[in-house]
């Protein structure tokens, strides 16, 4: 089809605008390419490439920052690239979160020396590749982009899960992850194709319009139901929601703590963003306010309740810290899903706040596990014992992270949890006002589940706390904090990839942990800046 001159200029202008908004992703993609090329030169083998990768991330963040005011004042933010993605405040918030997280993960990797200099290019490539996919997930506005984003995010994660080469558990974890992931994305793809066929297009607007037509007649046909279900299975896998959570504990246990942090926080942020956007778009198009909550919503509620409960109960029985944190991640996915299940903008804002608070908290928890590992060579509860005597600063930071995960004020975990519970309760109230007593009762029950789960989760968070602060180190001879190497060789023969490099741990790690702990405290005391962002971000979502 020939393009006229005006069309060409207007296309160029639009493309230029969109590319400017898309610049952070472009930079990340460029960095991935550069890192792959650097691998070709022998000279870079000795150089740790994490800082090299961090530089462009800072630039990308800076670019996003310059567009920030445009997003949050409302002059920018629309679909881009012929409707494939939406670059709106909601996406901007999540993309910013993901970039910050990738940056912190690179810093953490440099400090703990998880990828040594030789492997750092691979590590950074995979990390940035995954982040890129997640950023696309967060802004996807088309079922095709949903699938692309999910795959782009997943594939690097599979490799990262097996990053500890030569370690059986790591390889097993990666394999398990691949198998589950492949199955889940196959199912999701099938769902996507069903929905696309049914609604004659894959853009969220088209899908939402299709649902709205169905809502008018109040009937869900088999194809739509199956397609929706399958697509949501894909989302649930990324969220590690019950019953698609089985990969999570094994992968977290097998992978390094640093990778676990990435999988638990970044992957979750992208999946929550995608789920919220998809469901809110569909819900916003339906004239009947109770149609989506009564169909999909009930499913989300049940899954949320199951996820939180099962995650917490299973975590009670764990002795491996990473496995415990894996189940805790599952439980937190449950809390976030509770907020998603409300189908209100308050709920979506609560989920975003929860994510933002979860970032420093869970990253810190995993980093503390990494600190325990570099100090003692192991990652079980026993290795945690006596941490307060060995390294008081690490113990203080760990205490802050665990309490924030538990949801005690004045830490940010409480801020998130409070908002989730509040949105669930007010959703129950508003559905009660609409005359839907089942939904009202359902939300009150969901709140009760959430509250009881908080108490249950105290059981295992406090167990770690008790081990770290109250218990004495069992058989370990007292050793200087966070200096390792010799200890590992003698007692805990970990395979080579975990060999701790020069300058690993030490003051850098302690400072990193304390910084995150301070962030957790400050965000828990001063909610207002973050609240302003989240409430602005969800305004760009369709819905009410």
């Amino acid at each position, binding site marked *: 089809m020939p393009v006229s001159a005006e069309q060409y200029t207007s296309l160029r202008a639009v493309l230029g605008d969109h590319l400017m908004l898309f610049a952070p992703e472009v930079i990340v993609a460029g960095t991935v390419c550069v890192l792959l090329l650097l691998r070709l030169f022998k000279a870079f083998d000795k150089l740790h490439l994490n800082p090299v990768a961090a530089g462009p991330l800072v630039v990308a963040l800076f670019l996003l920052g310059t567009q920030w005011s445009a997003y949050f004042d409302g002059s920018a933010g629309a679909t881009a690239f012929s409707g494939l993605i939406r670059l709106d405040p909601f996406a901007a918030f999540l993309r910013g979160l993901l970039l910050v997280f990738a940056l912190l993960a690179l810093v953490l990797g440099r400090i703990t020396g998880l990828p040594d200099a030789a492997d750092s290019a691979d590590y950074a490539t995979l990390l940035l590749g995954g982040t890129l996919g997640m950023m696309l997930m967060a802004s996807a506005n088309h079922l095709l982009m949903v699938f692309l984003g999910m795959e782009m995010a997943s594939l690097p994660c599979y490799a990262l899960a097996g990053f500890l080469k030569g370690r059986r558990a790591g390889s097993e974890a990666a394999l398990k992850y691949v198998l589950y992931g492949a199955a889940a994305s196959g199912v999701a793809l099938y769902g996507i194709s069903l929905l696309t066929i049914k609604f004659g297009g894959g853009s969220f607007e088209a899908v939402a319009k299709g649902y709205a037509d169905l809502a008018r007649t109040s009937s869900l046909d088999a194809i739509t139901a199956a397609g929706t279900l399958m697509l949501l299975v894909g989302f649930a896998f990324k969220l590690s929601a019950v019953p698609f959570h089985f990969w999570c504990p094994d992968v977290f246990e097998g992978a390094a703590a640093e990778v676990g942090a990435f999988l638990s926080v970044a992957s979750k942020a992208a999946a929550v963003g995608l789920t919220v956007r998809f469901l809110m778009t569909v819900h916003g198009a339906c004239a009947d306010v109770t149609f989506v909550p009564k169909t999909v919503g009930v499913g989300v509620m049940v899954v949320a309740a199951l996820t939180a409960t099962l995650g917490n109960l299973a975590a009670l029985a764990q002795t491996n810290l990473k496995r415990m944190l894996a189940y805790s991640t599952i439980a937190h996915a449950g809390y976030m899903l509770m907020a998603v299940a409300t189908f209100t903008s308050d709920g979506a804002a609560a989920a975003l706040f929860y994510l933002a608070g979860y970032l420093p908290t869970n990253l810190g928890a995993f980093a503390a596990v990494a600190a325990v590992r570099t100090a003692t060579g192991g990652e079980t509860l026993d290795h945690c014992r006596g941490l307060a005597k060995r390294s008081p600063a690490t113990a203080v930071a760990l205490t802050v992270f665990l309490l924030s995960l538990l949801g005690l004020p*004045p830490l940010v975990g409480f801020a998130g949890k*409070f908002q989730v*519970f509040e949105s669930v309760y007010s959703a129950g109230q508003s559905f009660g006002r609409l005359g839907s007593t089942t939904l009202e009762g359902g939300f009150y029950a969901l*709140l009760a589940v959430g509250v009881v789960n908080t*108490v249950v989760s105290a059981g295992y968070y406090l167990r770690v706390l*008790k081990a770290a602060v*109250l218990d004495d180190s069992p058989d370990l001879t007292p050793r200087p904090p966070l200096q390792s190497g010799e200890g590992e060789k003698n007692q805990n023969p970990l395979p080579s990839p975990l060999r701790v490099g020069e300058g690993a741990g030490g003051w850098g790690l302690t400072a990193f942990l304390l910084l995150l702990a301070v962030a957790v405290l400050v965000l828990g005391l001063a909610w207002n800046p973050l*609240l302003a962002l989240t409430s602005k971000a969800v305004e760009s979502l369709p819905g009410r």
Partner: protein
Amino acid sequence: MLDLMLSSTDRELDLIQLSALAFLPAVFALVLLLVPSGWKTAMRWTAVFGTALTLTVGLCTLVDYHTLLDSRSDRTTRSLYHPATRLDERADAQLAVSATGVGSYLSDDLVARRPWIPRFDVDYALGVDGISLVLVLLTAVVCLLAVIASWTIETNLRTYLILLLTLESGVLGAFLSLDLFLFYVFYEVMLLPMYFLIGLWGGGNRKYAAIKFVIYTLLGSVGLLAAIIALYSVNVRDFVPQDLVKQRAADLKRKDPALTDAKALQLAEVHTFDFVTLGKVGRAVMLALNHQEDRIQVARKKEQGTNEADLRRDRQGTPEPVLLLAEGVDREAAIARLKGQSVCTPTFQYVVFALLFVGFAVKVPIVPLHHWLPDAHVEAPTPISMILAGVLLKLGGYGLLRFAFPLCPWAAHQLAWWVGLIGVVGIVYGALVAMGQRDFKRLLAYSSVSHMGYVVLGLASWSGGADARYWEWAVNGALFQMLAHGVTASALFFVVGVVYDRAHHRDLTRFGGLKEPMPVYSGMSAILFFASMGLPGLCGFVGEFNVVLGAWKFNWGLAVCAILATVLTAAYLLWAWQRVYLGVNPATAAFPDVSAREVAVLLPFVLLSIALGVFPSFLVYQWAEPSVAGWVSQLAPLQ
């Protein structure tokens, strides 16, 4: 927060004063971080200085509060009570200022309010009245003496003192909060320091006791959180200054320009964590549920000189009006709106009351939920036991008095008999179990359960109408009982600590004969034992007597049980006294008498328990009673 307080536009002295009272211990905890690690004595003195300064600020606040009461009192009556000095009146005035931005914050009303998280209507709101001031002063005294009692702590001294001071900050903040959310934050802040203090410096079974304490308290406090969220969801637009509603309507219109002004005004909702406002809703709900909604009336402008008394005169023969709705509210629409909300259903009232009651009952502790207490007391080090018994249990009583009853008065009234029964069961059960104890600390722990039962019974003695003064006595008694128990229980835990330092066990059967080698110590403990027993002339008597007096009118059966239980109290305390101090025992013959430091801790307690017993109204009631009178005058007429 600092720049918030010091901003020059609305400098408010009481904001600074009350914040200082709440945060001074925390500030000194930070100062402790700067003390070089070897200087243990310097750390101890820093902590003493910090707690003493807090007590000083507390006493200054008492003087201010007394001045405030005095300024409004017409001096013709015995009581300093005046409606304008009630906490809710002062808080309302402050709310009107912060809602409208008109007027200025008063520096002498001892109420301060600034927005903290506007998105969720959370305010940083502090304030005192007689009820909270009693407990604030008790906390400051007990913490100061507990720091002196901690002189023998050697291991991880810095951490210990930091945790103790943080704990004090949490408790004081909780007593001073006017905002449910802020209260919850402070309430939870206490949890962890206590966990570590028991878990790190406690006795042999300390880890078990610490985790039990946390799990029990957490169970109560998540219920509390659920109740707070439920209360937050209530639309209180007809109970707050109407300018606030207009602001909300304008916000709505900004979001959705299609709305008409009238529609926006109709849709506007106001939510709050302010318990004064929520208390008004609770009272209105009680009237509505009792089919007396014609008594709910709109408040008028103060200048017109109409107050409740005038209205009552105007409306001879009609039911007594209760001014609950804010000025300028359409009464019919407001009542219709209230009845349309879920807050105006028995289920909501029962559930929220139950959540609040259980949440605080764990702390009091009330009998089926008391199980953590003996373990925590026995395992905690002496100074921490003092704080636990003297201060933390009072938070439970304070919570019932401040939140559970005023926020859900209807349910409280319906369940008053059961609550009273639970209190009496606690009194009798605690006394009986205490009798069977061999461990000195465990005996005291169960005696705490017994003594705090009087607090619950006093609060529950709901008598309305002409009998309201009986309830006033009972509530006064409950408040005084909290103070008296705070003094005697902390002191007695220190008494155990003193003898434990010498004998290194707490087995009552192996003591005896302490009177010979330790005469001073024995004399002081005798006074404290008798004070705890409730001997007239000592502090324990006043509270119990008032409670029983009030409870008699409420239900004489419960009162009789409570009176008979004092015999049990006397029995277990005298028996314990006999086993520890009397007789001849070669094992204890060589014990040295109390040291100067131990006297420094014991003597204030002894003097307090005598003074409070001899001059209860001069020392406490004259400024605490007006607040209790205000409390009762709000709830009693609703019946």
